[in-house]
């Protein structure tokens, strides 16, 4: 019994190792052939280690769909034009199970086993950190779509690019909007992860330098299930507005508990939450009037060759996936589009040439706006919109003329809704 | 010269008083029997002496050393070894490793270690069981293994908690001989035993525990004759069954577990 069990185990291990090594070696030869152009069969492969399961599965899916939409459109339109020849694109996804260590090993797997030399990032800053490390070691470009932590770009890496602005810039537009509505005092609450801390600090600094009175600021642990006592405390300070920087479920929690505790604000804004369709579904009418910092909305007046207008992007997305896109998907599509532009500009899928092309994109206009690719790979100049939940839908209320869409600021008290 | 002194020892479990104001002392080199009906507190007493539990009140001296508050392993290293009524052997170790570990812990090394282990295993008649895992030993082997393991501590005082239960008559005779031999080596022993034949044949003195108090203390013959003891303990059972208690009598539930 014991002998046979042991024997079976060793056989099992041997078989698995062989499978792995064979698949690894087998494709490493193709990798050798394709390394120069990465395009042997008229297809350019792009790798994306992205969460399909685990705690980031939700955002991972949005990013996945954003990448996929770009791929499908490019292929429908005949492919990328590389030196006059058309190449189809093929994005190879691998599920990193939301685990940063897996993000790295899958990037390695895609590089070595699948011979892939161009990458789009997983969602969330920790996963981007570890995946870009592998890309940097192999000197292949990776465009990050799902994390704007400044520290990703201050490491001196040469092969990391992004479609996201710095997290610290997220709240600027929201505060500009609040200023026009006569909001003077603000309470800040934020989660303890990298993104939330940076976004909050950027927001608080912006608020102070623009004449707001920051009456309360506190950090809570991610995934908290109760913030009633913080709201009770905040109510004592009677701030005009509440700005929450955290995760979706914490934004929902803050709205629920504000109402339960009957803590009223003239305005409530979050970095993550209101832009997602499930925010309105989850909170029903209690979500009405809540503001969300966003990176993109379908109403923005930008357009490009692949997706057309922002509105058209939303239409295409809805046709493909059955739901309205939110900014996670759009920014992912933009990242993929940057990759495509760089390949066409470089006239090659060679990773070094694509990297150089990315670094020299300069100021470009896509369906998500006009921005400049900086020397460290980050982007600047993107005008961030603000959305407001109206009838369960995210409506663009900033910048500029969109402010005429703004309703109910100051918000009616909870008991008058 | 007394080797063990118990002074006014009491033990409560929750609200239940299990031992009440026990005092006695053991002379060096003597063999003392400890008897009493099930639940009288015998195992609790042994457990307190061995450091497995702390008394609620009272003091324990081993030679001049006060044992209160000392951890069990320290007491063992002082030369006070014990066995357990419900056997406790190292089930993941072989029989000889059980003994070897005890001997090694107490300072035996190298060749001396192996010689001593072999001697103890032979002494407890377990030579044919070396290499058998502890968990695969029969109950009577486990009882003997506990004894061998305790002897590996080079003890001055041995607390034996029902080491003979479950032995057949010829095994019993050899066990009694073994205890006699240990006694000749100068080891003091406190022996808990249900088998009156054993107690009578090896003890210099017998202590009787009843409902947590010490009700008699004297030479075996005197104890058997004591009416108080007969009433409390022997009257019901010993008289009825002069051959001793049935070996298959269910072992008492250990207090405090």
């Amino acid at each position, binding site marked *: 019994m014991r002998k046979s069990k042991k024997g079976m185990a060793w056989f099992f291990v041997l078989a698995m190792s062989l499978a792995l090594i064979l698949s690894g070696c087998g494709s490493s030869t193709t990798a050798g052939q394709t390394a120069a152009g990465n395009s042997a069969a008229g297809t350019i492969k792009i790798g994306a280690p992205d969460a399909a*399961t*685990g*705690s980031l*599965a*939700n955002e*991972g*899916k949005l990013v996945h769909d954003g990448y996929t939409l770009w791929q499908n459109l490019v292929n429908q339109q005949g492919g990328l034009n590389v030196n006059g020849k058309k190449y189809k694109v093929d994005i190879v996804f691998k599920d990193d199970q*939301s685990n940063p260590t897996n993000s790295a090993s899958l990037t390695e797997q895609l590089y070595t086993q699948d011979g892939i030399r161009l990458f789009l990032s997983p969602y969330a800053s920790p996963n981007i950190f570890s995946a870009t490390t592998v890309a940097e070691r192999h000197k292949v470009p990776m465009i990050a779509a799902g994390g704007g932590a400044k520290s990703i770009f201050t490491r001196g890496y040469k092969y990391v690019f992004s479609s996201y602005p710095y997290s610290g810039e997220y709240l600027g537009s929201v505060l500009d909007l609040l200023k026009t509505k006569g909001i003077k005092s603000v309470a800040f609450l934020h989660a*303890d992860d990298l993104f939330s801390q940076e976004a909050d600090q950027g927001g608080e600094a912006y608020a102070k330098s623009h004449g707001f009175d920051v009456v309360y600021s*506190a*950090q*809570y*642990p991610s*995934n*908290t*299930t*109760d*913030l*009633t*006592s*913080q709201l*009770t*405390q905040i109510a*004592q300070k009677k701030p005009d507005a509440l700005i929450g920087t955290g995760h*979706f*479920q914490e934004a*929902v*929690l803050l*709205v*629920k*508990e504000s*109402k*339960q*505790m*009957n803590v009223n604000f003239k305005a409530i804004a979050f970095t993550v939450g209101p832009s*997602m369709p*499930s925010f309105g*579904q*989850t*909170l*029903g009418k*209690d979500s009405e009037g809540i503001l969300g910092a966003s990176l993109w909305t379908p109403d923005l007046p930008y357009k490009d060759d692949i997706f057309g207008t922002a509105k058209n992007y939303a239409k295409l997305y809805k046709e493909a996936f059955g739901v309205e896109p939110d900014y996670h998907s759009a920014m992912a599509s933009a990242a993929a589009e940057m990759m495509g532009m760089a390949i066409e500009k470089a006239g090659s899928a060679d990773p070094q040439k694509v990297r150089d092309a990315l670094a020299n994109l300069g100021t470009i206009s896509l369906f998500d706006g006009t921005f400049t690719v900086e020397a460290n790979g980050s982007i600047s100049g993107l005008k961030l919109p603000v959305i407001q939940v109206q009838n369960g839908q995210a409506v663009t209320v900033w910048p500029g003329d969109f402010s005429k869409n703004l309703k109910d600021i100051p918000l009616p008290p909870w008991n008058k809704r | 010269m007394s080797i063990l002194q118990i002074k006014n020892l009491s033990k409560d479990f*929750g609200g239940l008083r299990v031992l009440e104001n026990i005092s006695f002392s053991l002379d060096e080199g003597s063999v003392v029997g400890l008897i009493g009906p099930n639940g009288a507190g015998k195992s609790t007493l042994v457990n307190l002496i061995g450091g497995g539990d702390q008394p609620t009140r009272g003091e324990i001296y081993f030679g001049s050393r006060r044992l209160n508050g000392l951890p069990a392993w320290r007491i063992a290293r002082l030369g006070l070894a014990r066995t357990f009524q419900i056997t406790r052997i190292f089930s993941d170790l072989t029989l000889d490793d059980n003994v070897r570990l005890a001997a090694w812990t107490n300072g035996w090394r190298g060749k001396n270690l192996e010689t001593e282990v072999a001697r103890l295993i032979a002494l407890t008649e377990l030579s044919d069981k070396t290499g058998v895992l502890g968990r695969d030993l029969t109950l009577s082997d486990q009882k003997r293994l506990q004894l061998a393991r305790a002897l590996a501590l080079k003890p001055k005082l041995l607390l034996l908690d029902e080491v003979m239960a479950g032995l057949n008559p010829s095994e019993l005779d050899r066990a009694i001989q073994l205890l006699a031999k240990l006694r000749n080596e100068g080891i003091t022993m406190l022996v808990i035993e249900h088998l009156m034949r054993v107690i009578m044949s090896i003890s210099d003195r017998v202590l009787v525990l009843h409902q947590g108090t010490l009700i008699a203390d004297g030479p075996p013959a005197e104890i058997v004759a004591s009416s108080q003891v007969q009433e409390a303990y022997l009257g019901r059972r010993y008289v009825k069954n002069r051959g001793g208690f049935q070996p298959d009598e269910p072992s008492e539930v250990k207090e*405090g*577990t």
Partner: protein
Amino acid sequence: MHLWLQIILNGILQGGILGISALAFSLQWGVMNLINLAHGSFQILAAYVAMVLLQRLGLDPFLAMPLVFLIFLAGGYLLQFGIINRVISGNLFMTLLLTYGLDFVLANFMILLFTADYKSVNTPYANSSWHLLGFQFPIVRTLALIFLVILSLLLWLFLEYSRTGRAIRATSMGTEPARLMGLKIPKVYALTFGLSSGLAAIGGIFFGLSNAFSPAAGGPLTVGAFVVTILGGVGTSWGPLVGGLILGVLDAVGSVILGPTYVNIITFGLLLIILILRPTGVLGRAAT
């Protein structure tokens, strides 16, 4: 003063949510010496079931509660009878591992079934509260506390006075005595797991009413149940209530005095201290 009273009240009401979530966990641990690492995912699954019943049939979660309870009772019974019983008498690691595997399967199964999107059980009263004596009593939290008290009482009566309850209690003292009493241990275990799955489902519905949830949200719930169970004492009917109240109030007060970022230090530091000083919990049986 009013501020502090409201904060303590917040803590007490949060204690209700914490306690009701730990009720099942404590029962499983106390009776079967089983740590159910899939506990949180059971609750999330119940929240999804309540959500589906609400959206498809318009069934209010509180009306659906008996139904969900029965579904989970049956499911739990079968799960224990078919799978967990096979390993429960073996090594302690194995049950841990099994429930960990179950958790993995459940969480990923829910992703396939409901997507990874955040959902909530959204009723008109979910975000409302009663205003009494100048204090805010959020309806869901207040009901959670009331339910917790009632369920604890019912559980206590059941374990103390019913035949089945006494069988469960006898089994919790150890399998050997129970076997001697002629009890069929696998059945008692299956019943206990069924009952506690039902209780977990009730806790899950309350969680779904008070928070947004996704398939991955089970982990923190399991950890929370750990803490509450230890604080209150393993395997006592009133332990979850006491543990929940202690943790709720301490976190509420601590998060205001020190800041909410220190809540986890308070929670887990307290857990460690309690474990070291009094491992049987506040209501637990005295140390052996």
